[in-house]
């Protein structure tokens, strides 16, 4: 077996092993780890769009909300019918949860396709703005759908997200994105990023690459949304606004665009930072935004990007 596949298998086994001993850990640490894992999935998947392919999307939270709502709707509405009143066995619950997550991911990917096809003709800050606009439209739409709880959101989602699911999907996301970018096909993403005109001139369909990146990124954002919903047990449209998108973008930038290891480290760091800064909670956002500006002025290639010689886009 090739190396990445072995690594994936090892990671899945490790996640399963950790699950067996989950009861021995402090629940607080498990919760923090779950939060870290969800953010890693979001950041790594956005990195495919913003980092490797060089497009600037500000709507990742919108795709996350699509996944969160759809998977929550599946477990809330279909769950009782399929599993019966006693809630089913652990295996049945797991299968239902997996199906719900995949449904959420696919719905988000569909939304990504819908958004990507028209908007990826634009570039730079126009694209950023259109994705932002779509994110806001998705949010306002959820606020108005009574069936999905309207502005109050969905409550009483079953607590299916365990540490195993989160770590397993972190491993799968990192595996898929890494293998994709390093494949022959995936070189096209980098070419689109480096010089779109040159890439088109040698016969790459850059629009197609951009859309593929967008759809795959949205799929994993939807998965992350599903995990988030079954972790927090309640979701509201306002939880997925523009601020959340920016938070994910900051992780990608901090890690160095197009550097998966850096982005993972940045996602971990930025999720832990608020926990560490709890004593100075009031000044947290001030500090956070100040650091962002200083970082952009001092290290525009990303704090954790140690590969010299390759300039940021």
């Amino acid at each position, binding site marked *: 077996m090739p190396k990445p596949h072995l690594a994936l298998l090892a990671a899945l086994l490790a996640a399963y092993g950790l699950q067996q001993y989950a009861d021995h850990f402090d629940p607080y640490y498990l919760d923090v780890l779950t939060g870290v894992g969800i953010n890693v999935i979001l950041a790594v998947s956005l990195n495919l769009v913003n980092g490797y392919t060089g497009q*600037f999307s500000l709507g990742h939270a919108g795709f996350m909300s699509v996944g969160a709502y759809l998977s929550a709707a599946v477990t809330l509405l279909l769950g009782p019918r399929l599993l019966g009143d006693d809630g089913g066995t652990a295996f049945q619950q797991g299968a239902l949860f997996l199906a719900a997550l995949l449904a959420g991911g696919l719905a988000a990917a569909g939304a990504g396709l819908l958004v990507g096809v028209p908007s990826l*003709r634009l570039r730079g800050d126009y694209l950023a*703005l259109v994705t932002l*606009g779509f994110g806001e439209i998705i949010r*306002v739409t959820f606020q108005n759908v009574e069936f999905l709880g309207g502005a109050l959101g969905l409550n009483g989602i079953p607590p299916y997200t365990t540490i195993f699911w989160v770590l397993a999907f972190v491993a799968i996301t990192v595996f898929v994105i890494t293998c994709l970018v390093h494949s022959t096909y995936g070189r096209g993403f980098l070419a689109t990023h480096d010089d779109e005109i040159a890439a088109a001139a040698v016969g790459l369909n850059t629009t197609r690459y951009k859309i593929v990146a967008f759809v795959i990124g949205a799929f994993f954002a939807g998965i992350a949304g599903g995990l988030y919903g079954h972790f927090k047990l309640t979701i509201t449209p306002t939880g997925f606004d523009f601020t959340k998108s920016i938070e994910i973008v900051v992780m990608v930038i901090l890690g160095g665009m197009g550097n998966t290891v850096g982005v993972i480290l940045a996602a971990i760091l930025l999720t832990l930072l608020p926990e560490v800064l709890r004593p100075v909670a009031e000044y947290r956002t*001030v500090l956070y*935004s100040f650091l962002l500006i200083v970082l952009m002025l001092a290290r525009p290639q990303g704090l954790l990007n140690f590969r010299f010689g390759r300039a940021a*886009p």
Partner: protein
Amino acid sequence: MSEFLQQLLNGLSLGAIYALIALGYTMVYGVLRFINFAHSDVFMVGAFLGYYLGKLVPAGTWWGGLAVLAGAMIGCAVLGMTIERLAYRPLRGAPTLNVLITAIGVSLLLESTGQVVFGAAPRNFPVLFPVRNFAVGGLILGSNQLIVIAVAVVLMIALQLVVYRTKIGTAMRAVALNPKAAVLMGVNNDVVIAFTFGLGSALAAAGGILYALNYPSIDPLMGVMPGLKAFVAAILGGIGNIPGAALGGLILGTVETFVGGSQWSTYKDAIAFAILIVILLFRPAGLLGRFTVEKV
């Protein structure tokens, strides 16, 4: 019919505010080619400056109101130039994306600093100008609405004069057209860019105070939505195009007010983005903009 005219008036006064903010976006985009995300927070700071200055002057007088307006405009002009000097100038020549992210950082910094300094709770904006309502043929004209429209029109005419009749305005247009050629012709780009930021921020401050007169509850996050919508207005009119920004603002404010008054009122916040997407897909250069082809 009278209801239609009433809504049209409400829409125009909201649109005039959007237009003032949009002008700042469009001018900065013209000279620097990036979205100044912090602009919407300068708008917020303008409203808060109005709040604090408004306590120093007697309420409901003409000279007091105009003095507050002028004070807030000067304050925000200084703020805008400071932001440009500290956060954007070091990045001159850097990729657009980095500047964009810095702008988002500045925006978040102003919002969070505002929450610490002003407090997150909404505050009631003082009454700055004398308030009277006129009834004209079944229409109710609030004096605040008329002030909003009058101030906006005066400022836009003043801006037009500055841009087309003064030396610095000519320099601004030169930098927008071709920064390198402008330098070769002896234009000091840094001064022009700083001036543009000052001018745009002053207009945002005026917009902030006018907005607060009509919607007298202000908080540190009040700028986010009007800011985004004003940017949509700038794109709608053709970004970088000054009359376009004014036109876009008026259209957007009117459409939004009519949607708000219809059965679709809960979708009010989404309509601006729907317009944005339609415009970018069918006429990316905006209503009055010119389309340019990217050359290798």
